[in-house]
């Protein structure tokens, strides 16, 4: 699972060049994927690593024509990573239901909103939930360490 996404998924489209989008774009471009990242704000591309080897596209990700220009129909992976849940839902629904993109990811701050994607094969990623799980996990790990010490 280290690579997470197999080699058959070659073309990657990321919408939203925030910290998460930029980091993801860089890592995937290092994995020899064809990455395109879209953002409305030209300055946001400064967040990309200088070693980023993919494309950038300046445009509104909620505009069908921008998504077409980014070749959404031939994308294998689409990640909706803007800072607006509704925009992410909109983009991921278009990617999955209209363009049949095989793997679609939607970043949501508000986990409940994933209900809008009911019956759609879209994976939602919720940062607060992930953080909570990470905290719980490290608490658990610490507990195990201390209990190990106790038994010793």
């Amino acid at each position, binding site marked *: 699972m280290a690579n997470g996404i197999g080699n058959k998924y070659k073309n990657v489209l990321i919408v939203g060049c925030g910290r998460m989008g930029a980091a993801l774009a860089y890592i995937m471009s290092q994995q020899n994927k064809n990455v395109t990242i879209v953002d409305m704000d030209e300055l946001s591309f400064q967040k990309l690593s200088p070693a980023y080897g993919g494309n950038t596209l300046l445009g509104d990700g909620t505009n069908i024509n921008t998504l077409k220009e980014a070749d959404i129909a031939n994308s294998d992976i689409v990640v909706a990573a803007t800072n607006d849940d509704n925009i992410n839902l909109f983009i991921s*629904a278009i990617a999955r239901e209209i363009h049949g993109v095989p793997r679609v990811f939607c970043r949501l701050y508000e986990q*409940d909103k994933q209900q*809008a994607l009911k019956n759609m094969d879209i994976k939602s990623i919720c940062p607060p939930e992930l953080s909570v799980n990470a905290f719980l996990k490290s608490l658990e790990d610490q507990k195990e360490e201390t209990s190990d010490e106790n038994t010793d």
Partner: protein
Amino acid sequence: MKILISGGRKKTRYLLQSLNTTKHKVVVINKDKDFCKVLSREFKNVAIIHGDATVPDTLEDAGVYNFDLGITLCNQETENLVIGLLLKNVFTIDRVVSIVNTPHNVNVFKELGVTETINSAKVIAGIIEQHAFVQSLKMFMPLEDENLLILDIEVTEKSPVISRPIESIKLPGEAVITAILRDGKATIAKPKTILEHKDRVIVTTLKKTKNKVIKAISGA
């Protein structure tokens, strides 16, 4: 009928004014708190809820399960789509009408199952066309992707169809005369009906033959 109206300001207010709110159960959800206060003073029979309708909890609190109709009037297309999807997929509302400001998004809404869209730009374009473009065209109503049109055309003095029975009129393409408006009274078109000056002819036609049909009836 149970109706939910979400987003929008003037559109929501005018819609409430024209709806019979004692006959229908109407629930309004709006993000603007002050606007909600204004509405709740004006409309006593309407449940006004201050909240974000793109959040499932808000819709849950509003109790909109199985409503008959959902209307979304937000300025942001993305919000309208998210509300539409929630209403359809989670709250099992079959009919959702959304305002769509960007014409190329109409198909997005349709393909994602938000059943009906009001395309503001197209509506305005249609109104301009019916008033300015052809004088004898009184009304223009596009149906189903605008391939099917209902036209209201006036019979002028130089109309080729004047004083002729409907059965003898050959319209181009697959157009059909369905009704006649004469002196403000509507009648269903019959084969023997004879058309008179100033009659208004209601025609159903495919988009591609629209201009030919107008010409065949108005003569202009």
